[in-house]
């Protein structure tokens, strides 16, 4: 058996490690190990490649690796936890650029057929788009660029023309690969296209865009693999390409949006409510609520009239039991005027057989509010309205409330942004630590309960 076969067998192993790693990455319990496994796959692939007969010059390679490794490691260490997404965007851009370069370099290789040229073109195009697209995404996320979507009249037409131009250049390039003029134009146009692709998208949607660009960089690697005839590049690239698209779709679903809506609507710009209330409303889906609850060790449930309307008491009890089984302490904070009659909440909670021991009065929960990991406000509104504390002009001013806004995280379960009995807006919904879980309370809690089950 010759070296090439050995290398390829190792490549098979490496591909298996990537596959297995990806699989493990998609489940919380195994994610970290998955990442390790996948990096192991990468490591052996790199090492074995260095034995390739074709590689004769090592000094430059060592230099490149050392430089790149140092930069990458430093960046990964230094970056602030909150800045990770933009860092990923940057890395991704570099990956795309690398594919572009590999494709380009392949031009100088031996045995360049029509087919190879096509794949070279593809790897340059996709690599270029990924590169500039990722850079723009990085800029928008990090605040270097304005997060607002940039839209201008004729954008559609411009992009169509751009695409056509790329296509034409591609054909010309394939016909005459030695003419580097086309090559440069293609590189330039693909850079431009990457920019055009991302600017109309709002900063809030950048994670989706990055995920999509990540998928592209996989495809670029795949195309480069065809160009230099390397199976591992093809396998790993197409794995990333396909799984990236699925991930993108999943992310869109979690935001309750379609991919085309994300890409073409100019949505997703950070919004600010009018009036005194400041901040952004941050919706959350049941699945994510579950992940936070799952990690919580003390939970406060604040029921209100909406729990009664939804008749959600039974599922609330179920949630309580699941949280307790999960090791969390659960108490209810019952505001004296919650609901529409005195003792309204008591009637319902007794019906659901919630033990009296966990029903606490407002004055009992407020002093320890800071210690609750999560406060779940279930269809309550006025009784948790911080305007009663903060806003002298509010008709609620002076009324004691349950200060859920002081809890580490607050989930507010209601159907809309509508106000409660008193008809006043609620600044709680806009607080940094608040997450809105929209929908009928019974439905929402059932969903969370189901997440616990899975």
């Amino acid at each position, binding site marked *: 058996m010759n070296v090439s076969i050995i290398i390829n067998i190792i490549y098979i192993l490496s591909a298996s490690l990537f596959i297995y*790693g*990806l699989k493990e*990455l*998609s*489940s*919380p319990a195994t994610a970290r190990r998955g*990442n390790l496994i*996948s990096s192991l796959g*990468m490591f052996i692939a790199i090492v074995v*490649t260095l034995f*390739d007969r074709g*590689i*004769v*010059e090592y000094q*430059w*390679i060592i230099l*490149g*690796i050392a430089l*790149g490794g140092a*930069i*990458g490691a430093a960046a*990964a*260490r230094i*970056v602030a936890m909150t800045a*990770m*997404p933009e860092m*990923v965007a940057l890395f991704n851009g*570099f*990956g795309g650029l*690398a594919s572009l*370069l*590999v494709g380009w*370099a*392949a031009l*100088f*290789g*031996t045995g360049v057929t029509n087919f190879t040229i096509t794949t070279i073109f593809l790897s340059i195009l996709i690599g270029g788009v990924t590169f500039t697209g990722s850079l723009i995404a990085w800029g928008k996320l990090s605040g270097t660029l304005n997060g607002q979507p940039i839209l201008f009249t004729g954008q559609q037409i411009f992009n169509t023309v751009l695409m056509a131009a790329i296509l034409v250049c591609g054909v010309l390039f394939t016909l005459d690969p030695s003419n580097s003029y086309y090559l440069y134009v293609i590189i330039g146009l693909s850079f431009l296209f990457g920019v055009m692709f991302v600017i109309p998208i709002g900063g809030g949607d950048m994670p989706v865009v990055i995920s999509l660009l*990540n998928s592209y*960089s*996989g495809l670029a*690697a795949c195309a480069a*693999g065809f*160009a*230099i*005839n390397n199976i591992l590049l093809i396998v*790993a*690239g*197409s*794995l*990333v390409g*396909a*799984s*990236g698209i*699925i*991930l993108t779709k*999943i*992310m869109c679903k979690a935001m309750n949006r379609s991919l085309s809506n994300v890409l073409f609507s100019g949505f997703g710009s950070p919004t600010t409510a009018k009036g005194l209330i400041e901040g952004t409303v941050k919706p959350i889906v049941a*699945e994510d609520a579950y992940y936070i609850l799952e*990690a919580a*060790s003390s939970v406060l449930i604040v029921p209100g009239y909406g729990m009664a309307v939804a008749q959600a008491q039974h599922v609330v009890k179920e949630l309580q039991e699941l949280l307790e089984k999960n090791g969390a302490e659960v108490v209810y904070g019952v505001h004296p005027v919650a609901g529409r009659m005195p003792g309204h909440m008591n009637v319902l909670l007794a019906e659901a057989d919630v033990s009296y021991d966990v029903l606490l009065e407002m004055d009992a929960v407020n002093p320890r509010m800071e210690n609750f990991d999560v406060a779940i406000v279930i269809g309550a509104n006025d009784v948790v309205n911080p305007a009663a504390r903060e806003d002298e002009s509010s008709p609620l001013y002076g009324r004691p409330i349950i200060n859920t806004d002081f809890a580490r995280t607050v989930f507010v379960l209601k159907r809309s942004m509508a106000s409660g009995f008193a008809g006043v807006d609620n600044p709680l919904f806009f607080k940094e630590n608040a997450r809105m879980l929209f929908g009928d309370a019974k439905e929402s809690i059932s969903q969370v309960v189901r997440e616990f089950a899975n």
Partner: protein
Amino acid sequence: MEIVFLAFILILAIFLGFELINKVPATLHTPLMSGSNAISGITLIGALVSAGAEQSQMATILGVAAVTFATINVIGGYLVTDRMLGMFKKKKRELSE
């Protein structure tokens, strides 16, 4: 014939990629993205070959640049992913203690 094999492999890998990611909790979206981004740095392999093959100076220059960028992607990607997941792990462990 080779092209047939490659095509087969491509198709299988794409199917596999689709199947692998079934249901990912939102907390893992970013790490997963970052982790698979690191894998896409596999283009480094290609870069190595280009850089080391001594085909032409241009190819070597391009190759070395590609190696550098790809390495940033690979090393940075894996490390960042690990950091993210590390946080996640710790939070869980805290609880169980």
